[in-house]
């Protein structure tokens, strides 16, 4: 179809050919703009980070210090915080998202699932700063007064995992950050899962039900095996979002340059570090460059995750 459209007819060949050529050039330029956008982001980050990488070398990534007084910077703590909160978010969000997707596709009637599905997607539209304020006003006190004291008295005494749940109950910290992120990414993951579950051939499920399988057995043994790749892709998509999240985390993470076992202890993430410290760092200073270097690391981590996610989700689209 497209071929025939490009070949100009004999009647108005010249004029038409020009119009089409101009139009094709314009849309191609717009497409190149997209590539320049992402490529430019990576290049500018790398350029801004050159000072920090030249001064500290590769050790920047594993250095725990962040000391503006001695001009000594390292990204270990924010990288640690970014990974810990994002992984916590995934651990908490995946079961929730899976439960919601199963509920929407297998349990609820189509009409109710439509309404509830829309409500869940509205949660994805709420801006991240609102999650931050809600987290600070509701979740932090709740964690500090109930969850953390209780957990440190019970789970904190269990050998092996005990150290994870000990520490002063500030309310802010890695666990609270992970929980906020989990609430934020659950709608994204469940939307992907729901679409995949719905795209399954109905005859597969129907035959399984016909053989007498229970609903859970159908989900566990028919739906999940068929949709594994895309489900993992959806989870990676959520992980990518969680890694780069800024405003919500800044409110509840506690903002301390800290690495430790306790999930209750305050920490920071790359994004929250940039949001807080960038306005106070002079252009061209070592701190500025170190923040750019941290941003560059965040870029690499989140792009890597997103590339994996897109590849996993694409294999399915191509395979169908």
């Amino acid at each position, binding site marked *: *179809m497209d071929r025939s*459209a490009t070949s100009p007819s004999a009647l108005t060949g010249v004029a038409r050919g020009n119009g089409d050529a101009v139009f094709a050039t314009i*849309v191609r330029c717009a497409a190149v703009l*997209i590539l320049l956008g992402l490529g430019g982001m990576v290049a500018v980050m790398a350029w801004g980070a050159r000072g920090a990488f030249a001064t500290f070398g590769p050790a920047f990534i594993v250095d725990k210090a962040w000391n503006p007084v001695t001009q000594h910077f390292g990204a270990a703590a924010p990288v640690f915080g970014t990974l810990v909160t994002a992984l916590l978010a995934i651990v908490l969000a995946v079961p929730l998202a899976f439960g919601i997707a199963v509920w929407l596709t297998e349990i609820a009637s189509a009409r109710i699932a439509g309404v509830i599905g829309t409500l869940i997607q509205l949660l994805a539209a*709420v801006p991240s700063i609102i999650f*931050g304020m809600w987290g600070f006003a509701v979740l932090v006190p709740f964690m500090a007064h109930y969850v953390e004291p209780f957990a440190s008295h019970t789970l904190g005494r269990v050998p092996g995992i005990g150290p994870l749940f000990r520490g002063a109950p500030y309310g802010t910290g890695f666990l609270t950050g992970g929980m906020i992120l989990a609430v934020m990414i659950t709608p994204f993951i469940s939307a992907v899962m729901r679409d995949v579950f719905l795209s399954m051939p109905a005859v597969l499920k129907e035959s399984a039900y016909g053989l007498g399988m*229970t609903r859970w057995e159908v989900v566990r043994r028919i739906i999940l095996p068929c949709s594994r790749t895309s489900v993992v892709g959806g989870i990676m*998509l959520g992980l990518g*979002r969680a890694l780069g999240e800024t405003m919500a985390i800044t409110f509840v993470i506690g903002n301390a340059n800290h690495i430790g076992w306790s999930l209750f202890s305050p920490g920071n993430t790359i994004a929250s570090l940039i949001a807080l410290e960038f306005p106070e760092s002079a252009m061209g200073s070592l701190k500025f460059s170190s923040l750019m270097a941290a941003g560059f690391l965040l870029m690499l981590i989140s792009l890597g995750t997103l590339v994996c996610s897109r590849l996993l989700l694409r294999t399915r689209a191509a395979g169908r």
Partner: protein
Amino acid sequence: MAGRDNVTQATTAPCASARWQGNGLSDMRRRMVDRVATGLCWAATVLVLLMLFSILFVLVRNGVGGLRWITFVHVTLPPGQGGGLANAIVGSLIQTGLAVLIGAPVGLLVGIYLAEFTATDNRFINMVRFISDLLLSAPSILVGLFIYMIVVVPTGHFSGLAGALALSMLVVPVVVRTTEDMLRLVPLSMREAAIALGAPRWRVILFVCLRAARDGVATGILLALARVSGETAPLLFTSLGNMNWSVSPAAPMASLPVTIYQYAGAAYEDWTALAWTGALLITAGILMINITVRLGLGRNRK
């Protein structure tokens, strides 16, 4: 275990044998597992809905008190002197408006490219689509850093335009996605009819395909508007915020999200109250756009 073996067998070889009847005990176990799993799915859905309602409830409880006339007509003032959010509201409108004006045309063109030029440049198109999808979920604070480096540093000052540019980078991938999807839904016969009538290709695309897909495309632009109007991180280092009345895109400009961010962390009660009011306003606006769009889509599908 007997029950589980039966199930595995059923999935691999779908021939129901007499063994399928099973014994009463494993049957009961299977039903129990099913009940528990179903219950957990209910619990997950209810829990997440509760989160949504908790957020809305807290927003309304803390924010509704500030919905007074003065909030909408007065600019932000130092703590203790009253004041409103007028400059932040107007600043947000200007910046998101500019962002959509800049980002939507680019997104439209790229969406057209992805949907209509597959016959000639398929490989490059796949790459562009991939990159656009990456941009869709790229950390928005890094977009802010990028614009800071390429706009704020060379021009020497923060500006509303820089903020709008940062937001427009988030608008583009959303519009690209919806435009491409919607153009692909336009039936082939429509294009063929237009081409048969002798229309050049660019006219077919712009005046036939895009026109047929305009509801969906407009939806995409609205969703993009909704998405960027709550973004804070890209504005922190680009438009910076402004305590005074500012409508010039060349100067630092206030915006609702940034004002909320500054006020929410403050120790002054009137500031935090205003932050909640701003948060309520912005969430109400965004949810309203989303609900309208979804209702509209639902109607069109029928």
